[in-house]
């Protein structure tokens, strides 16, 4: 054996979900990584390095949380492979640290015994001893160590207590594999393990006789109450939603004005020409269009992190399970779909917590039908025009609510149909969720996680979106015609010509070619529709957004077809609304779906399906309405 391979012995951390394995991993290696209260946050094997008290370097593997080594789920398969040394690129670990929750020894020791049975040297990290002692459990680590035949280290990983003692146990020579004392010849190994654990717990972890009412129980009696629980659920999520909308607006304003200032600065530096147009309208405009989503994403993930880390998220999933089951989904789909009301992009990213692969795909598929905030400017433009009113009356609020309800209901119906078609998962999934005790949020992990997500979004989606923005810019700029105003230039460009070509396609929906063009430009981002309409219908822009919309509305209500009929009849407006509810006019979403679903086929299929669905729905509304005499 060479010196370097001695220096780099590998230890693997294994334990049930929520045993504090990832917290211990972070405390050992100093690497920052997410700790969620949701079962199964660690999906891949992560590795890091740590040092023993003597300064010897050790590699640490953080295996996925699992309940047994029977390889029921992909996570458990990975854990078993890593322990038996069959994971590609990983040798058999030199030592296994079994992380157990001291207040749950009856459950967690199962896995420890299975590891010992594999013949691997083992150290037991008796985590969360503080919680266990608070519930009145009397622990006897020395007795536990004696009975199991392995070193036992009581610790509190979240407070970094016991880390040094654990490192002491990792000194050379490493402990040897212990004898299996519980398995007698011919007996059922399951039953033998069970009997041994029950005997062991009676000896070394005596529970108080009376059932204790912990603080978590008291909180749960309110938060999971059949009636009150719903009041809290609605209250909490309404607050989160409101906070995302109202707080995100401030940094979004900064980004927009910063983007404007940068564009202005670049414009003043460069001579007028295609290159300037590319940089100002294509690159800065395109990148700004991405970055502007960032505050919402950051806030949403901050709140998700808070709710998850405090333990409330699994309660919400528990409460919502019955509602989501009507759509063929489970409680775990609630959060991603809810997030999608703010923006489908973080919503799609949040589907990672869903265990069932098929349920996750279905959730990703319908998420864009939860009306996102980018549609709001369009709704604000059209609804007052439809009702012949100024902005902001209760009738408009009612229409807006109807729009949200229509999108959500359709999403649920389609989810149900799709779930039925995809069939059951290979392993039947039962609703099964651990409700962890309420804990104080771990801010450092939450902030780190939010930062990771934000960077991932900017990096990965940003490159794709930027490319697409430049493409759209090129389409609406070339071929050029000199000496004409913006509207004619746009009409002359490839985009304008496409608009002309597609007029026969959108005419049955009650739209003219200019609206067709505006809709096409809105596929980069929905809110672009309003500014495209302003250019196409020649409205002078002012600085005030609301005034812009009202000017545009005056212009639109006067627009007529060549034969003198008004274009924007109530029916055409309803048809336009329906189109915007259903169409997936958001290339960033498609890019993120492709990444999260791992398949461009799924993303493009979703795009085509939703656009076709929107077209058919608008067609039915317009033509049906005409037949009924509207």
């Amino acid at each position, binding site marked *: 054996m060479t010196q370097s391979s001695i220096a780099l012995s590998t230890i693997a951390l294994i334990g049930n979900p929520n045993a504090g394995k990832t917290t211990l991993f972070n405390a050992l290696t100093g690497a920052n990584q997410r700790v969620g209260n949701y079962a199964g946050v660690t999906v891949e094997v992560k590795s890091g390095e740590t040092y023993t008290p003597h300064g010897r370097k050790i590699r640490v593997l953080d295996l996925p949380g699992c309940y047994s080594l029977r390889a029921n789920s992909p996570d458990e398969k990975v854990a078993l492979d890593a322990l038996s040394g069959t994971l590609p690129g990983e040798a058999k670990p030199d030592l296994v640290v079994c992380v157990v929750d001291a207040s749950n020894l009856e459950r967690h020791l*199962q896995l420890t015994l299975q590891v010992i049975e594999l013949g691997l040297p083992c150290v037991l990290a008796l985590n969360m001893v503080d919680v266990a002692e608070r519930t009145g459990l009397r622990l006897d680590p020395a007795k536990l160590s004696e009975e199991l035949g392995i070193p036992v280290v009581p610790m509190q990983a979240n407070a970094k207590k016991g880390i040094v003692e654990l490192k002491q146990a990792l000194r050379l020579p490493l402990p040897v594999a212990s004898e299996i004392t519980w398995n007698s010849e011919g007996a059922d190994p399951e039953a033998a393990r*069970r009997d041994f654990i029950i005997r062991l717990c009676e000896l070394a972890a005596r529970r108080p006789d009376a059932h204790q009412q912990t603080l978590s129980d008291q909180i749960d009696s309110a938060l999971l109450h059949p009636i009150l629980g719903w009041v809290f659920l609605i209250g909490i999520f309404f607050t989160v939603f409101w906070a995302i909308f109202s707080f995100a607006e401030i940094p979004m304003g900064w980004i927009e004005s910063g983007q404007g200032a940068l564009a202005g600065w670049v414009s003043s530096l460069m001579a007028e020409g295609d290159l300037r147009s590319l940089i100002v309208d294509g690159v800065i405009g395109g990148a700004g269009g991405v970055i502007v989503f960032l505050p919402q994403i950051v806030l949403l993930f901050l709140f998700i992190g808070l709710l998850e880390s405090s333990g409330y998220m*699994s309660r919400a999933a528990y409460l919502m399970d019955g509602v989501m089951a009507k759509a063929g989904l489970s409680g775990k789909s609630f959060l991603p779909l809810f997030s999608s009301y703010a923006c489908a992009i973080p919503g799609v990213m949040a589907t990672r917590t869903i265990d069932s692969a098929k349920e996750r795909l279905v959730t990703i598929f319908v998420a864009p039908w939860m009306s996102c905030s980018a549609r709001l400017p369009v709704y604000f433009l059209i609804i007052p025009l439809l009702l012949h009113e100024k902005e902001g009356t209760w009738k408009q609020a009612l229409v807006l609510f109807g729009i949200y309800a229509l999108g959500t209901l359709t999403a649920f119906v389609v989810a149900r149909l799709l779930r039925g078609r995809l069939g059951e998962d290979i392993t039947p999934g039962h*609703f099964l969720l651990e409700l962890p005790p309420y804990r104080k949020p771990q801010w450092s992990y939450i902030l780190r996680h939010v930062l990771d997500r934000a960077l991932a979004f900017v990096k990965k989606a940003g490159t794709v979106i930027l490319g697409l923005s430049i493409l759209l810019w090129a389409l609406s700029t070339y071929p050029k015609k000199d000496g004409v105003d913006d509207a004619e230039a746009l009409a002359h460009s490839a985009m304008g010509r496409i608009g002309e070509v597609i007029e026969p396609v959108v005419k049955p929906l009650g739209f003219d070619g200019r609206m067709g063009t505006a809709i096409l430009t809105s596929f980069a981002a929905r809110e672009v529709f309003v500014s495209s309409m302003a250019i196409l219908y020649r409205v002078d822009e002012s600085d005030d957004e609301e005034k812009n919309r009202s000017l545009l509305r005056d212009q639109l209500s006067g627009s007529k077809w060549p034969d003198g009929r008004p274009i924007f009849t109530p029916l055409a407006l309803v048809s336009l609304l329906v189109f915007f509810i259903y169409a997936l006019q958001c290339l960033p979403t498609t890019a993120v779906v492709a990444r999260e679903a791992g398949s461009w086929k799924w993303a493009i299929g979703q795009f085509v399906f939703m656009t076709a669905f929107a077209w058919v729905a608008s067609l039915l509304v317009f033509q049906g309405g005409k037949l009924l005499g509207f």
Partner: protein
Amino acid sequence: MSHALATELEIDSAMTLNQAKVGCDVQIRLLSGPACERLRDLGFCEQLQVRKIAGGRNLICSICGTRMAISRELAEQVLVSPLG
């Protein structure tokens, strides 16, 4: 009476976790059904005590100090008998 028969009689008098009253402490007698391995991994083992905290579409029970929410289909596979 043979031991096997005694066990059988005992199981006859048992009920499923679904039938247990909310707020009751019960002892797990037997697991039977396709998901019983999964249940054992989660801590639903023979002889252990469970307190049923809430019923309904999904049950909440407290087992060894942990709260678990499990579906009715899973709870149907857990046979319990009242303590005491």
